């Protein structure tokens, strides 16, 4: 049932007195009756004229008094200001880092990592705030983008292999943990995370393939990652029973 507390509170508040209804006017140029009055006619910008009481009561009888709207612009301005403030702070931090880097340690361009991190952070913030998708979807995209970001960072800093060897398997393991907790928290819809789990299994399998192909030197974490994800997926499918079958049927319907 819907939350009644807020509605009740509003209802218990004494009904607000009718806001001052703006006087009904008529545009002498267009001949249109403006139910909400206003300083100028929105169509020709001519100053409208007031109407006498008798005409106003006839208009109210014929057309009613219109339907006022809330002032939305104020809310929009606040949201835009908040996003701009975050962007401004991020730019300031990056600029300061670049300046400090240039003055104190010009031989190592560590500030580029700050810059990349800020861009990544802002893009992700924008994605989480504005993008319309469920948790599972957003986490999936987050994991994928993180993997890509880490892989690129490794590649651009000498391609030493630490991303594939340690960090990306850790991200997948972290993803497993997140999915596990989400399934516990959202028990009535735990099957929603199945596709995400399947995608992580595929990502794990790709890294395992790279391990066997010789691209990864130390495969301990890769093995742990694929083992944990596989056991998790297997347990989900076996214990999920009819719910999993139904979920798969719906998700894969053609």
């Amino acid at each position, binding site marked *: *049932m*819907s*939350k*009644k507390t*807020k*509605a*009740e509170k*509003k*209802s*218990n508040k004494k*009904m*607000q007195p*009718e*806001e001052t209804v703006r006087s009904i006017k008529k545009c002498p140029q*267009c*001949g*249109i*009756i*403006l*139910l*909400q009055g*206003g*300083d*100028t006619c*929105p*169509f*020709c910008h001519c100053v409208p004229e007031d109407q006498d009481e008798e005409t106003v009561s006839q*208009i109210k009888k*014929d*057309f*009613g008094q*219109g*339907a*006022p*709207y*809330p*002032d*939305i*612009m104020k*809310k*929009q301005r606040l949201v835009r200001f908040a996003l701009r403030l975050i962007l401004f702070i991020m730019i300031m931090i990056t600029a300061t880092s670049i300046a400090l880097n240039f003055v104190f340690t010009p031989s190592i361009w560590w500030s580029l990592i700050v810059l990349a991190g800020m861009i990544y952070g802002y893009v992700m913030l924008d994605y989480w705030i*504005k993008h*319309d*998708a*469920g*948790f599972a*979807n957003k986490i999936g995209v987050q994991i994928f983008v993180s993997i890509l970001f880490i892989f690129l960072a490794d590649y651009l800093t000498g391609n030493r292999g630490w991303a594939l060897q340690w960090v990306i398997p850790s991200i997948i393991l972290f993803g497993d943990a997140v999915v596990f907790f989400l399934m516990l928290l959202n028990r*009535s*819809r735990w099957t*929603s995370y199945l*596709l995400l789990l399947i995608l992580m299994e595929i990502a794990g399998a790709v890294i395992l393939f790279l391990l066997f192909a010789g691209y990864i030197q130390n495969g301990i974490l890769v093995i742990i990652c694929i083992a944990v994800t596989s056991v998790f997926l297997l347990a989900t499918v076996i214990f999920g029973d*009819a*719910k999993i079958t*139904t979920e798969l049927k*719906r*998700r*894969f*319907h*053609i």
Partner: protein
Amino acid sequence: MSPKKKKLPAWEKLDNTALLFPVIATEGMSNVYRISATLTEEVDPQALAEAQDKVLSHFLNFRMRLRSGVFWYYFEENDMKYPEVKEENDFPGSYINKSKNNQYLFRVTYYKKRINLEVFHALTDGFGGLVFFKELLYQYLRIRYPEILNVEKDQISSGIFLDKEDSYLRNFKQSKDHSAAYKSKKAITLKGEKLPNGTMGVIHCYLPFVEMKAAAKKYGVTLNQFLVGTYVYAIYKEYLRGDVSKTPINCCVPVDLRSYYNSHTLKNFFVMISAIFRPEKEDYSYEEVLHIIADCLKSQINPEHLNDILSYNVSNEKNKFLRPIPLFLKNIAIRHVYEATAFGTTSTLTNVGKVELREPYEPYVEHFYAMLSMSKGQNMKGAVVTYKDTMILTFSTILADLSILRTFFACLRDEGVHVAVDTNGVWE
């Protein structure tokens, strides 16, 4: 006793029209429409919340959430708490975030004397929205004014259909002629200075039904043809300045298919036809434009043509080679096709029709309104609804310049129609 085993949530496939909306919906192009009504007194939020909960329990197709499959989107019964009834705090028809609002695809809001129902078009069309909205109003009025219960039962109306069939698929017949279905040639786009980003302007025009009917009769056209014709004429005069143009003005008009196929579905069941006016000479008169538009609409509203459009739309969905393509690829293709054809339409004008309420409820409701959100290439749209003696035509627009409407009203005034107007104040 063992605890009752929880039933698996119901699910269903999206109807043919609904397949498009989740793909193209964005903040600026929400594909959300609004139906609202003003009452004689201020709205009681608690009674409205109670009414929503009661009515919603009967309407499974409003209790759905949208989910992505590997190949298609689908609806699944939403087991979350019913959405909160809130005071209006956004522009009409603003985007319905599928992961917020407890994942429901509609919202009920209020402001002073007005109750609003906003629906994501994937769920249902104006017909379905109106069925739900009327039941919501009835229920609200029964709670708010218990004296109605002396003559009415406290239950949803008998005689309404809660049918959820996909009437597109049910009535699909292979058509011989697909070329007649849609023409995607470029049409005039209404450009000009726009309102600040994210702002939606609303203009309600109150038109006496009798005067409108008399004006249409004078030219021997239907009310719908008269409205569309006048609107197209206003665009022609203001936007083309009465000049010759190779690019036509194309005003889309949705046609409810239920009466043609004897359907009562609460899902989408409509097609779009086009009122096309291509000025081949200078200075067409108002009457000439009215008759061109009337003939154009008349030629398309026949069972054969409507069936051509329906079968063209459904044929892609039924294509066995397209069906197994993964959803993300389908989305890219659908978005691409949509964007390529979006500029084939200048505007849309829809007529929801005449709303009638049962006698005990009627005195409590003053007006009905309907409005549409913006689409790509269409910066102004109109929606008409008639209740009691007043026809209310609501234009929604992101344009700062309203000269098209000035000409539109001037035409109506010249035909003896008294016009009263109300806006949401964004032009002040």
